[in-house]
């Protein structure tokens, strides 16, 4: 059993809900990590923030808690390739055959994080340069994809904290019915405060990442 690792995240309270924040932390929350070490989580969080930054255009990866989403995905069946064909022989092939490597998403992250060094200590411009240098790697492609997932997933997966990503883009969450709305007011945006899947079905929903073994 590995030592329990935690990530301390600065938070602030807004309208009665606790949000992750980049600045003006009122308090911190300690989030238990399932896969990353504390140091790894900090590197990943810094990289995600550069991929989907908090900026004038609105909140980003830090506020959404993207690193928590990624940590849970990697600790679950996806991270260990439970649903990928992993029998040999392992051979390199053409790009049309997709990823043929043996490394699992967990392996790819562990290796990739090492390439980033002490990313959080660098100024933003240097962080960007370091990420640009690895843009073509399988690790970066995966990190980019996962950042987007953690921004816009249902909050049941640990990202999209308080549905901040959905509010940012205007997605109203899973809803039972648009029977009255569909086709109405053509060309006008229909925007509502988002609901989560748990809100909609009225009970907590467990993601696939919670599956054991």
């Amino acid at each position: 059993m590995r030592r329990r690792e935690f990530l301390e995240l600065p938070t602030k309270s807004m309208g009665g809900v606790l949000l992750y924040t980049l600045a003006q932390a009122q308090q911190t929350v300690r989030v238990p990590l399932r896969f990353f070490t504390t140091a790894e989580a900090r590197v990943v969080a810094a990289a995600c923030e550069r991929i989907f930054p908090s900026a004038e255009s609105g909140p980003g990866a830090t506020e959404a808690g993207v690193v928590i989403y990624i940590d849970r995905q990697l600790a679950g069946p996806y991270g260990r390739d439970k649903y990928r064909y992993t029998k040999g022989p392992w051979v390199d092939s053409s790009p049309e055959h997709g990823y043929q490597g043996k490394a699992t998403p967990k392996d790819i992250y562990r290796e990739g994080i090492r390439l980033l060094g002490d990313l959080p200590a660098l100024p933003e411009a240097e962080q960007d340069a370091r990420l640009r240098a690895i843009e073509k790697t399988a690790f970066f492609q995966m990190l980019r994809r996962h950042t987007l997932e953690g921004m816009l997933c249902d909050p049941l997966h640990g990202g999209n904290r308080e549905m901040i990503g959905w509010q940012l883009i205007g997605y109203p969450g899973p809803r039972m019915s648009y029977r009255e709305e569909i086709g109405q007011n053509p060309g006008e945006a229909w925007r509502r405060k988002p609901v989560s899947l748990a809100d909609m079905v009225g009970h907590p929903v467990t993601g696939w990442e919670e599956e054991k073994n």
Partner: protein
Amino acid sequence: MQRLKPVDVVIAGGGWVGLAMAKEIAGRTPLSVVVLERGPARRLKDYAAGMDEVDYVLRYRMMQNLAEETATHRHSAGQSAVPIRQYGSFNPGTGVGGAGEHWQGLAYRFLPDQFRLATVLREKHGRAKLPAELAVEDWAVTYEELEPFYWRAEQMMGVGGKAGNLRGQIVDGGNPFEGPRSHEYPNPPHKQTYLVNLFTKAARELGYHPFPSPAATLSQTYRNPDGITRSGCAYCGYCVRYGCMIGAKAQPTNTLLPLLVKRKNFTLRTGCSVRRVVHRDGRAQSVTYVDEVGAEVEQPARVVILASWTLNNSRLLMLSRIGDPYDPSTGKGTLGRNLTHQVGAATPIFLDRPLNGFMGAGGLGITLADFDGDFGLDPSFGILRGGHIRIASGGEAPISSFGRIPPGETEATWGSAWKKAALKWWDRSASITSEAEHLAYRQNYIDLDPNYTDKFGDPLARLTLDWTDHERRQAVMAEKVQETLAKAMGARAGKPARRVGTHYSVVEYQSSHVSGGATAGTSPETSVVNPWMQHWRMPNLWVIGASAFPQNSSGNPTMTILAMAYRAADALVDRYLKHPGALA
């Protein structure tokens, strides 16, 4: 191996075909019917809690577990194949209802001339002008023979649409190029959206004939001839790769299973993976399978029906050593020949106004068939057959739809400039897509892989498949039409998402409509099953599904598969059971 008591009929696969055959046989006869499904049971209440993009769209939660079984692929004989290790170009389902649970619900019929394609091409172009490697065949059935069975399947599902050809009369607003229908659709088309209305208007202005895509997502509450009532679609947008949480999308579990569970002569066993058909002296004796706790079981039966996914029908025959494997170097053998997929093309479009693209239904959309079959094919395209051009409001999911940016805005794919542009265009972008016929060629086929095995140690199916210039030109033609339509809609067209590149790719999703391998035909020299889906050499073995298609058409194949299954069921119940033997 545990040997069970014999039953009358055993069916491998609990999807559309397996349950439709079970319903016809168990409903019309006292025979005992056992369906073996390797995946889990599916329940309506799981589908509401399954409205989650990460697990269901990005992680393929309803699909076959590729760790246990996949297929391998190579571009040509002589190469060694590699496994399809993760999902990409097609998505086989698993569980009760199979891919029929997570399908889009597009319910097209095929064009009449598709069923006599070899003759049509020969007559039109002359044998000498056709590619030497073409392996296109006439089907074992005609459109006219299938028409009543299409109608039966449409009524069962409650398909909504607008007929364009009613008993030979061309009707405004429908597809004027379609084959004659005996009836108007059971239901009206879906409500339409801003996006599809823009497309319809543009298509009409260009002189095309747009029609509502036929949809198995109900446009209103509907009671089918079996007395099953389902509610109309709520346009929640969670269709493709999901099961429908209100049962509005026709699925085997909400149309067929409710009838079957009431029958005492019907048994469904889940978690059971069929591995072999045991046979002796030209008769199937039983199937062997591994059950949900891992025990090996033999189920004897008087009739064996293979109703598994396309590739698996062929693979089960190969593993069971039934029939002669196809050899592309000699052209001899029939099992595994005529492997086809479909030829997709998509052009992203960008509009000034928001679309509310998260509202929608799998079947909600507009199609035009002006370039389908050999209609409207300018000789400069250099192609024999075209396909559908479509747009849909199928329900955009936030992660999958985020990040579409028109050309010229930013080259970045991450960072603040990218984020800003992606935010601006989210919900202002869509895709015009097309699906073209895939012709059969001698070099494209299925056999068993010599190197890779499934979880039981059985060889995987190996696909030898590549594009030819014909498919590449089909994609170019589709992109040209898509660009014209985008302009007429007042939209900016993006760079086409080229799905047909230099070589066939298992990475990009194409469609889940892989076909062929155990084709139906009029001669045992060129096909595996006869026109009633009965194995030529084994009259008590029936092999049903898209595996029987000699080449693939432009529409989604579900209705054609079901029409062929219903026709097979009638032949089995009305004729075979009275006089078991080869049907003529």
